[in-house]
């Protein structure tokens, strides 16, 4: 089973500042693997452990994203591909899926796993858009992934439970935290990752014109950027339970919730 996983480098969500003054995500600081991508990676590693095969991890980012690929390799991925090009700064969603699709088209795979959304952009549209561009089936919000005869089966999380989906492969799957907690790299894994290949692909390598993708071609622009108004310090309430309960309920009633 050949699996490709998109592992997006994102600013550490615990850090304070993320957007530069130009309204673009500041990608110069420390990066981590996007949360839902890391769950997808874990699912991919488990699948190849059980069924055999290999896992290729792909990141589109500045050179700093290489660290994220190294971590994925240390967890057990077979090889990495870093898509990087100065012209990609400020790429919008449409450019992003076009570039990713061009890179993925060069690979042979049965499954393309992508986290359902990211902690920086958070639009949650990349896996669906990629599936459409690649002309592949899309199975979203996966809680489980299992190979079946001539295809793949996914339990998709819905508002009321799950629906079980099946499609032919190759297919694109949107992964969630329900796939299971990611492993930590072992020392052996970290050492082994040093000798694994990280191929670099530029827009030129992918046959893409920088005028048609990236910042120059963005179909959206930020016209204003601001911090949310500070919430005042919380009103603190202490005392016997019955008294504080009355105060809470009066507060809720005053705001129209009761």
């Amino acid at each position, binding site marked *: 089973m050949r699996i490709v996983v998109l592992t997006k480098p994102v600013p550490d969500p615990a850090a304070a500042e993320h957007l530069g003054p130009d309204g673009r995500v500041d990608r110069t600081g420390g990066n981590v693997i996007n949360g839902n991508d890391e769950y997808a990676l874990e699912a991919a590693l488990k699948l190849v452990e059980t069924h055999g095969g290999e896992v290729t991890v792909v990141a589109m980012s500045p050179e700093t994203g290489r660290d994220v690929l190294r971590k994925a390799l240390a967890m057990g991925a077979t090889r990495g591909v870093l898509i990087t090009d100065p012209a990609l700064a400020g790429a919008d969603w449409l450019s992003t899926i076009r570039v990713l699709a061009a890179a993925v088209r060069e690979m042979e795979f049965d499954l393309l796993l992508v986290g359902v959304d990211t902690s920086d952009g958070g639009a*949650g549209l990349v896996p669906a858009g*990629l599936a459409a561009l690649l002309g592949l089936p899309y199975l979203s919000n996966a809680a489980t992934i299992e190979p079946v005869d001539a295809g793949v089966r996914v339990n998709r999380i819905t508002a009321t439970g799950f629906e079980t989906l*099946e499609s032919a492969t190759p297919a694109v799957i949107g992964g969630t935290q329900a796939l299971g907690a990611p492993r930590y790299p072992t020392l052996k894994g970290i050492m082994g990752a040093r000798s694994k290949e990280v191929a670099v692909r530029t827009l030129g390598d992918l046959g893409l014109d920088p005028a048609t993708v990236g910042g120059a071609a963005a179909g959206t622009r930020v016209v204003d950027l*601001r911090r949310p108004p500070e919430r005042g310090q919380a009103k603190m309430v*202490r005392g016997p339970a019955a008294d504080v309960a009355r105060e809470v309920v009066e507060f809720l009633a005053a705001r129209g919730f009761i």
Partner: protein
Amino acid sequence: MPGGIWVIGQAAAGGGLARLSSEVATLARALGEAGGVPVSGVVVAAEPAALAAELAGFVPRVLAVTEPALAASAGATVVAQRVAALARTNAPNLILTGADPDGRDIAGVLAALLGWPVLANALNATWGPVGPRVEISVFGGKQFSTSEFTAGRGVITVRPNAVQAVAQTPAGSVEAVQIADHLALPGVRVVGRIHEQHGGAAVEDARIVVAGGRGIGGPDGVTLLEHLAEALGGAVGATRAAVDAGWIDYPKQIGQTGKIVKPALYLALGISGAIQHKVGMQTAETIVAVNRDADAPIAEFADLMVVGDLFEVGPAILDELRTRRG
């Protein structure tokens, strides 16, 4: 009707029009009025009549597409292909969906097929010099941005609870539309459905969320959350710690790798307010916290903070609610 604004009507899990779709339709109507642009709804379903009639309560005109393929296949990709085909002949400038999982799937496929840009997770939109100006919260509410389409054309996904649904009178018209095109994208079969016993209300749609963290301690704490949610007419939510402990199902998880919610009221029990949770709920209008630790980070962004034991304060709030209602 070239240059129009379209809103895609999505079905709710239990049947009928999703409340989110009525909110999105209300926003579309407001944009249309501000910009002097016609607004239409689009419904694609195996039997679209009822859904289309409901959506027509919010927009002047609804296109109803009958799609037999939706009876047994995963819907988003099919819906997106039908809307894309309609859009190629009718040439709207803007198409709006909900930013819930189904809406995202539709929007992603649709925008890719049309080659349109997307502004995602809108909290509001107004009409500017070159079309809509869309307000978005990024990084879970750490910052807000206002964005627009450079060519005035694109797909917008709208967060639940971003706008309040307002019906229009009289209701709009419904037109049945046939689309004969071949479905080019490969299908995904639905081979089974599993209904969770304790499904409850979807946390991302709820106007009131009662959420628990590590401090709820186990099943008794979950029962308390459920009783409070029932008494307030809300949905139960959870932090990752409560989900990892196995007390509450993942679909109710709020935060970085779970749902992002914007309820009117967020009642947080035993939740410290770590950043990974905060990014999922800090745009709630009112936040009330119950926590034993007065120095918990949630004190920095709650409106009201009760310092105390949630197993004493929670039941007392329930009693007080019942007393008030007689």
